[in-house]
């Protein structure tokens, strides 16, 4: 089978699976799978850029996704004016002071000759800067969090259109990637993995604890939407009329309409990014990236700045994950920091890339859809399997109860198994790199 035929066949399979869900279960869940599949495909595209193009091992996808989610809150929520008046500037000043301390420390480090005096100067700058930062910052935080804590207690956002948060999410993630890349790239490959693992946990810790920023574990609900509300549609006589003329009940029609709206928006982003990624892959830049991936020493001998190129592609890939994260939070309509689980947001994306075919953009997109579909459907399948296994056991027998209760954890097992099997028997994935 030629490459194109195989690609078409596999994508048709995905389409059949999703449409099948629509026919046998409900169109609502089919569209849910489609929407999250689109987002997953974008994340997989980002990871593929790093791993497939450049061989960089990023296990902090969750952190970049969460930063995208934060961007949604910062951009789209209306500002809390009282909070800004109470301590907004003070918090910002605190952050600027913190950043200035670090910059000052770096400059001192570069300017002074190594020795005891430099160490002493660095310690004075860092410790003094830290206490100054905490003094200014903590006061601001307290006054912000004191304002109406049950519904607000945070700075709010900028009140801009929510769609703008998607590129902003990408920028935030790119910024974080720049900081990690500056320190960990150029060292051995495992270190980047551990550094990214760490930064992801820290981003989540910040989201959970900094209430002035995004209300922490109190969550931000009711984010503005780029599509109309279901209720408004149901109250719109023209829409109800059209729905009834199509033979669908208006409530169902409105939810389907909204989900379709999201699907169109996401699909547009995916297509744009996919085209860009494809162009990049087949450009001289893409060839250079793959040359670096396959043989760093030879590429360096040809005069390529390996570390710089790595930094570049690391930032780009992370930015794509940030965009996807902002889209996901927009779809959810709320930012819930506790839902960010590394297994779901980092390692699942990795399974998508490996299964789809690393180095192949279409493969990553395919993997995104396919693995997301499995992720959703493995749970009912696991439950069904357990019911079949336990059907012979008597009601109330402890093993039966236990197996049925634990069926939900089948997901992780299945995903791990898929990853290992693909890695072992078909390491190039479903759609191998050409």
């Amino acid at each position, binding site marked *: 089978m030629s490459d194109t035929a195989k690609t078409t066949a596999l994508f048709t399979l995905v389409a059949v699976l999703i449409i099948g869900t629509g026919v046998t279960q409900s169109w609502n869940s089919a569209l849910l799978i489609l929407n999250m599949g689109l987002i997953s495909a974008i994340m997989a595209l980002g990871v593929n850029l790093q791993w497939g193009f450049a*061989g960089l*091992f990023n*296990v902090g996808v969750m952190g970049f996704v969460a930063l995208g989610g934060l961007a949604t809150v910062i951009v789209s929520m209306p500002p809390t004016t009282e909070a800004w008046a109470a301590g907004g500037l003070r918090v910002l000043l605190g952050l600027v002071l913190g950043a200035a301390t670090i910059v000052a420390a770096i400059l001192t480090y570069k300017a002074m000759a190594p020795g005891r005096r430099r160490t002493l100067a660095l310690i004075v700058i860092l410790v003094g800067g*830290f206490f100054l930062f905490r003094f200014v910052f903590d006061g601001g935080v307290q006054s912000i969090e004191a304002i109406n804590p049950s519904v607000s207690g945070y700075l709010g956002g900028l009140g801009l259109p929510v769609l703008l948060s998607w590129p902003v999410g990408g920028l935030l993630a790119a910024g974080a990637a720049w900081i990690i890349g500056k*320190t*960990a790239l150029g*060292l*051995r*490959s*495992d*270190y980047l*993995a*551990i*550094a990214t*693992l*760490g*930064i992801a*946990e*820290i981003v989540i*810790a910040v989201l*959970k*604890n900094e209430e002035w920023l995004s209300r922490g574990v109190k969550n931000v609900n009711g984010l503005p939407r780029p599509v109309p509300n279901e209720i408004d549609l149901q109250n719109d006589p023209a829409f109800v009329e059209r729905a009834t003329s199509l033979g669908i009940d208006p409530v169902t029609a409105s939810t389907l309409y909204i989900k379709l709206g999201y699907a169109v928006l996401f699909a547009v982003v995916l297509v744009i990014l996919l085209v860009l990624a494809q162009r990049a892959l087949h450009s001289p830049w893409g060839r250079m990236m793959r040359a670096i991936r396959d043989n760093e020493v030879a590429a360096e001998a040809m005069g390529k700045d390996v570390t710089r190129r790595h930094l570049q592609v690391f930032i780009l890939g992370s930015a794509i994950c940030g965009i996807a994260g902002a889209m996901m939070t927009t779809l959810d309509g709320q930012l819930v920091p506790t839902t960010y689980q*590394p*297994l779901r947001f980092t*390692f699942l994306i*990795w399974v998508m890339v*490996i299964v789809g075919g690393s180095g192949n953009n279409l493969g990553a997109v395919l993997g995104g859809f396919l693995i997301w579909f499995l992720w959703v459907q493995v749970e009912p399948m696991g439950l069904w399997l357990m019911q079949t296994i336990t059907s012979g056991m008597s009601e109330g027998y402890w093993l039966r109860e236990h197996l049925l*209760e*634990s069926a939900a*954890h*089948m*997901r*992780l*097992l*299945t*995903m*791990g*198994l898929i*990853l*290992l099997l693909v*890695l*072992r028997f078909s*390491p190039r994935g479903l759609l191998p790199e050409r």
Partner: protein
Amino acid sequence: MDILNAIVALSNFVLVPAIAYGSQLALGALGVTLIYGILRFSNFAHGDTMAFGTMATILVTWALQAAGVSFGPLPTALLALPLGIAACILLVLGTDRLVYRFYREVKAKPIILVMASLGVMFILNGLVRFIIGPDDQRFADGERFIITARDFKEMTGLQEGLAIKTTQGITLVTAIIVVAVLFWFLNRTRTGKSMRAYSDNEDLALLSGINPERVVMVTWMIVAALATIAGVLYGLDKSFKAFTYFQLLLPIFASAIVGGLGSPVGAIAGGFVIAFSEVFVTYAWKKVLVYLMPENLEPSGLVQLLSTDYKFAISFAILLIVLLFRPTGLFRGKSV
């Protein structure tokens, strides 16, 4: 008197917990560092290996408790530990046979082995949750304290009490024994020497007739034992939860890297560096400073440098500093 009170408060809230936590991290980091030295990859499944070994131990503990067996003032889990270690050894030898051996034979890049370990991590994580559930499990029994805060106050007449939990004592004693045995094994026995030779120079070791598969097998067995012991000690001291063990991966890796990957001494030093910095930075110092500062200068706040929720950030910051200024770690590990 004030100075004594300050010292006691410091020991009670900072030194004793940090020593216990440091020992647990050191044991975990030893496992990571051994795998890195011999098999030459970062094993991301280590946290979940610890979780699996601990889970096996907990199950045996429950069985023993149900049978009415107890270990006097010590936790029953210590009796169950050998069986837990055995289960964990079977598990890691099984994963090595099914997963890692193939990549060794084809001489895959280390990063491929790391990805395979991700897959193993997924499976173990699912398996542990499947068997014991995702919730907190407490399995410590026996005497809770070696010395309680109240006894200490009565004994010394100080205002501050010093409480030492049995689990903290056990952690330290076990860690010392385990480390002593490990170093004796690595430095004095034939197998241990062949392991170090293999780690230093694979080709030379193969030339001199060392059987690589045997070295790898022994390594996995030691790692399984270390992981189970570390996991059980951590679980006794705090509590067992599959997700917490996965999260331990970051401080454990930080310890191993700070010490120098591949260096056992470094892993132990790294474990204590990470543990002490975590506890130092997240401890609210008010309690100690109250005794040391003159009354009019007493701090009004808690004097906590960072909230405890940011303990990952501390492991991470130390990791970054070490990577930037001394990429091979404090004890000059490998930098393959």
